[in-house]
């Protein structure tokens, strides 16, 4: 085999003893790569055995793999034949004769099938019916999408709003320009019921939406926290401007005007929650949100 693997270096110093010396150098470099890789593998095993360390493991693994890779590439580039050869392409297409032979054989078989019309029809029908029947279990994957998308646990109003800890909230718990996230009592894990309570400044120019004049208490307004774009929590409040910003896709809602979208991809206002105070002075919701919360869907308006 060695006879064949004459180095085929087409560099400027292509011949003679220079070339031999160069070949020797490359061979040594390549061998050194393999030795380094071996050492790195041993070190890798030791590091793991001693308790492991992610950076060291990554680097040692890289040295080990890289050593083997570099060694092989040097070997291939300098000591393996790099002659260019040409191979003919043959037509990919079958010859007309082959196609004709195939057609003849296929049609011979097909004609015997075709004679049993009833069998072909009933067998086809049976397979189709089986196919349809096998689609049905897909239905087990999830419940029928019902009222769930249009309702939240606030439908059991009047209901107190509570913090994540379960504690009810008084208006005095909220500073002016402050905002907190609340849920209906007993549903702090409901993904569709997170609500923002925002206390605006009395002189900030809050304009209630028509018909919602009594939905706020003590300058506190409540909106669904789910963005009407794709349902991210609208978590940033710019108190000075009275703007709610969704960090996901930068939809911006004007808190002073019924949380209508003023920028970004959201096309609908955040649904508002009607608020009131109960006998003990805690904030309650007097009904469900003004619209289905979160992202839109086909029959949302139905």
């Amino acid at each position, binding site marked *: 085999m060695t*006879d*064949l693997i*004459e180095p*085929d270096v*087409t560099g400027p110093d292509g011949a003679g003893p220079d070339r031999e010396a160069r070949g020797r150098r490359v061979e040594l470099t390549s061998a050194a790569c393999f030795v380094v890789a071996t050492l790195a593998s041993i070190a890798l095993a030791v590091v*793991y055995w001693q308790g*492991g360390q*992610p950076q*060291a*493991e*990554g*680097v040692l*693994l890289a040295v*080990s*793999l*890289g050593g083997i*890779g*570099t060694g092989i*590439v040097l070997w*291939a580039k300098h000591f*393996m034949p*790099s*002659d*260019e050869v*040409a*191979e*003919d*392409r043959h037509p*990919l297409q079958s010859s007309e004769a082959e196609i004709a032979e195939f057609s003849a054989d296929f049609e011979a078989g097909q004609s015997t099938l075709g004679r049993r019309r009833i069998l072909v029809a009933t067998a086809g029908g049976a397979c189709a019916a089986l196919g349809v029947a096998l689609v049905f279990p897909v*239905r087990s*994957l*999830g419940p029928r999408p019902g009222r*769930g*998308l249009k309702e939240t646990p606030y439908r059991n109003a009047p209901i107190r709003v509570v913090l*994540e800890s379960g504690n009810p909230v008084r208006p005095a718990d909220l500073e002016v320009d402050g905002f907190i996230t609340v849920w209906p009592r007993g549903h702090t894990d409901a*993904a*569709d019921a997170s609500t923002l309570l925002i206390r605006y400044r009395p002189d900030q120019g809050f304009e209630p939406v028509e018909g919602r004049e009594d939905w706020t208490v003590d300058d506190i307004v409540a909106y669904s*926290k789910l963005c009407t*774009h*794709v*349902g*991210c*929590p609208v978590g940033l409040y710019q108190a000075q401007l009275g703007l709610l910003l969704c*960090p*996901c*896709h*930068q939809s911006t809602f004007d808190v002073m005007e019924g949380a209508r979208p003023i*920028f*970004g*991809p*959201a*096309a*609908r206002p955040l649904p508002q929650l009607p608020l009131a105070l109960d006998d003990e002075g805690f904030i309650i919701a007097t009904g469900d949100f003004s619209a289905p919360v979160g*992202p*839109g*869907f*086909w*029959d*949302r308006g*139905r």
Partner: protein
Amino acid sequence: MSGVPAPEAQRRRRRGPEHLLTHRLARWVDSRLGTAKLARTALNKVFPDHWSFMLGELGLYCFIVLVLTGVYLTFFFDPSLNQVIYRGSYGPLRGVEMTEAYRSALELSFDVRAGLVMRQIHHWAALLFLASLGVHLARVFFTGAFRRPRELNWIIGCTLLILAMLNGLFGYSLLDDQLSGTGLRIVYSITLSIPLVGTWLASLLFGGEFPGPDIISRLYVIHILLVPAVIVGLLTAHLAILVRQKHTHFPGPGRRDDNVVGERMWPTYAAKALGLFFLTSALLAFLGGVFQINPIWIYGPFDPAEVSAASQPDWYMGWLDGALRIMPGWEIRAFGFEIPNPFFPGVLLAGLTFGLLYAWPFLEARVTRDYAEHHLLDRPRQRPVRTALGMATVSFYTVLFLGGAADVLAATFGLSVNAILWTFRFLCLLAPPLVGWVTYRLCKELSARDGVPTASNVTVGQIPGRLRHREERKEAEPESQALRS
């Protein structure tokens, strides 16, 4: 080879190849399957050599690394939504309530030896996998390698790209950290936005309303079994078709449409490929060891009421996230029905993107009336219209991609997010025609300077640079050929 007489000394040391174990094993297999002829054909298979032909190979090696590291991860990860209290070794989260999925991912990162490095290599390999598929796609497009007879492999390749993107998304959605939960929330809402069937699809996929009790365990099976199995199948077909049709080559002396000029598979090409596999793995091991990726312990467990600023998907989903951001706040409402906003960027744009990608070879053949077989590649400058359209498309998706980082750009450069998004809204309309026009002019200019006629068959020898290089090589060839015989 057997004709070469070995020196006496050597003959005494080795008893000849027929006694080697591998030799005997090969004979054993051959006597049962008759593989020698086929194997010889494989050894002598000719592969053209060009750096850009390694891009798909790179993707293949990333996939192998993904499978190897992924199998390791499955031994420790538990895709369960059961609530547990964390008691592992990461202090800041001790005592926090979380799902078993997130807990086992933390355990894998902090308490399983070599777990973190494996997880990070897996993630880096996914990022590089998608990158190499993207660049491979661009290479195939700009050199016209998709033309007849390779339309089938183009279609398989596009499918592989979609599957790889989806599986990447599903993969980082499994860990149930804050970022992955936000991603799933967006996936749910985009599914929900599909007219007529959206609510059903979302319910069937998630097992109910978001967050859905089943989504993580379902994505797990899809991520580790279904999609990889389909990828393996399609990859096999992709390579089998490549072997059957033989690789394309660039024009050059002696290179014609009815031959393929390159290196034999054995031993040089095989060795280089093996070397590239090791080097790719080395790069991924280095990245996985040294560069932190997806630090889920910083994001915390998923809470649907929380989100962190600068939530970005992995890079290959960036164009979709950017499209969601750049889209103006429009939706269609009539008779109580609506087509919600995310449908347009999230479903329609993605559908159009991949629809056009699939259809491209057929569209181009139709427009150019070129239905002939092509085995010689184009240089991009020879096809100004195709290259211009391709670059225009690339610029469009680049703008979308940058749009996905609008908030990060705003924070980094102290600009207003709104101003940046408005800029991107205009840019995604203006950049494609501009980039397309500049590319077209450049192609014309370059090919005029080459003296190569555009959009016509190029005769060999008209590619400067390559030509000289090849002629120098020619002189060495007869010698090595002689040695071989």
